[in-house]
């Protein structure tokens, strides 16, 4: 009898948790952001000031873009997440899947602040708001590389044999990087030629997560390679002899974006939050903390931050090479398969 009672009690408490859960969700906004310093910076620069101003309670849901996208797909019928950060690429897929809402410029007036390169549009409709750019350039150990190379082709130099790191297709930058090289080498696409050259590269490591890359630079396993400006300067800030440079052929860039979730119960607040993220102040704050290149006009950053922007110390947003994500996604399976067979074995 006592057992049955306790099972009943357990069931009852489970039920009550669900009820509490839903009633809480109506009062609290849920915002999906990346983990670690990215989520912290976005919270600090955008969400906290917004919440204080509007008297909103919120809960952060940490996860990378792919995870947040997967959650949105599962929650499609009754979304818990109201606003979600997803990077370029995943953003397009989320819109394609119909889990994010289009943004109305009349209700999100700061969309007008966006630089032309930062507009995420399809059929004339905004489906995301960019909060800043990051790029994949040459990252190197300043103690072990005397004369940093200025060209991607220098990575094939015998001097750097077995000390190079580049992203694998499992990393979000992996496939765009291959297509970028394909473009600068061949003009038009010739994947066979590109893979033949990639096969010649004497790599120490192909990284899947940026944590792996950072670790490799830290332990000296990698001395030079293709990595993100944001990760490189983060390591440099921790006192490691690491620097980033923008190669002369250009470099691939991507942006972090925030999205209004379709069917969110806090649509109006969500729109306000997106709007709040598109101000020069929020952008400058994110640039300072993460070295994200501002996506909105008229952002003033300190000289120190300016040197760490995704376009390098001297470039501008115009030097970023963006590749159409639909083109990338169309070749995703093919390139991954080629990589598996040619490189990763």
């Amino acid at each position, binding site marked *: *009898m006592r*057992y*049955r009672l306790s*099972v009943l009690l357990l069931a009852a408490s489970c039920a009550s948790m669900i009820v509490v859960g839903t009633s809480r969700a109506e009062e609290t906004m849920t915002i999906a952001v990346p983990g670690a310093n990215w989520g912290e910076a976005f919270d600090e620069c955008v969400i906290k000031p917004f919440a204080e101003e509007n008297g909103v309670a919120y809960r952060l849901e940490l996860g990378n873009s*792919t995870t947040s996208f997967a959650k949105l797909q599962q929650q499609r019928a009754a979304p818990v997440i109201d606003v979600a950060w997803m990077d370029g690429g995943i953003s397009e*897929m989320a819109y394609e899947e119909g889990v994010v809402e289009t943004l109305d410029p009349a209700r999100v007036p700061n969309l007008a602040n966006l630089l032309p390169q930062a507009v995420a549009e399809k059929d004339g409709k905004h489906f995301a708001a960019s909060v800043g750019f990051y790029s994949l350039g040459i990252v190197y150990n300043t103690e072990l590389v005397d004369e940093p190379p200025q060209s991607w082709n220098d990575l094939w130099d015998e001097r750097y044999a*077995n000390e190079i790191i580049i992203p*694998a*297709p*499992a*990393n*979000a930058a*992996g*496939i765009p990087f291959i297509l970028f090289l394909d473009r600068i080498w061949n003009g038009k696409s010739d994947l066979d030629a590109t893979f033949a050259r990639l096969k010649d590269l004497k*790599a*120490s*490591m*192909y*990284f*899947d997560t940026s*944590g*792996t890359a950072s*670790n*490799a630079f*830290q*332990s*000296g*396993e990698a001395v030079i390679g293709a990595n993100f400006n944001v990760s490189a300067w983060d390591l440099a800030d921790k006192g490691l002899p690491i620097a980033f440079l923008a190669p002369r052929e250009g470099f691939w860039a991507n942006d972090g974006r925030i999205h209004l979730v379709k069917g969110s119960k806090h649509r109006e607040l969500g729109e306000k939050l997106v709007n709040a993220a598109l101000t020069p102040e929020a952008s400058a704050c994110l640039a300072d903390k993460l070295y994200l290149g501002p996506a909105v006009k008229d952002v003033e950053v300190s000289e120190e931050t300016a040197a760490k922007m995704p376009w390098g110390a001297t470039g501008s947003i115009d030097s970023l090479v963006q590749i159409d994500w639909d083109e990338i996604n169309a070749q*995703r*399976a093919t390139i*991954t398969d080629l990589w*598996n*067979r040619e*490189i*990763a*074995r």
Partner: protein
Amino acid sequence: MKSAPAVVAGLVALPTAFFLAFFLVPLAVVALASLTSGEGDVTFTHYARVLFDSYHWSILGVTFRLGLYTTVICLVLGYPLAWYLVRMVEWRLWRRVCVILIILPLFTSNIVRSFGWMILLGRRGLVNSWLVDFGLVDRPVRFIGTETGILIGLVYILLPFVVLTIGNALAKIDVSYEQASADLGAGAMSTFWHVTLPLSIPGAVSGAILVFALAVSAYVTPALLSGGQVTVLPMLIFQQYSSVFDFHYGGALAITLLAFTLAMIGLASLVGRMGAR
């Protein structure tokens, strides 16, 4: 006593529900995806793609080779360790300390431990600087990005499972069998080979199965220590789910790994049972 069946049902219901919700349902979702096309028609094309391609067989080969080597090395290292713990340590406190030392790594995340090995095994890592300092090698050995590196990581992570299962089996053996063997004139070696070892085989087999299953399905350790230069099947599966988003092909890969692992385990326990006879 009357309420016993109800109590049992109540007790079993929760784990059953848990097992259903968190294991069988997701597994069924994966299996279903592996058997359907994007349009929802039933198809075997994903399995054909996996099985009629020598590339996948070579990846399966790497995966099972690593699993097998890990299991053998764990058994060879784990048996003497378990023996030492159960038979040779006389001081109880020291035994407890040893057991804690063996279990302690299990409390730390796999990711952290694998990152640790990345640093230790790196070209500028501790292992290589020792090897060079002691004159064992002229220049740093490449561990990261090789099967050897992955093997070291897997053995380290999975060794406790073997020590615990074999230790448990050794502790359960009644000492009077060994005394009887000695009374009948068998030497220590002979007693070990003919009495103790056969009695501890079931523990070794269950430890081996545990290690093998965990090794062939391991993702984190191979992913980190391979440096992207060696591919095992779990990495291929993860790639399909996380970056290519082909859940059908990914599902077929996952079910293939499951089927081959179950077949290997079935074979092993068959051999184990025959050996015990």
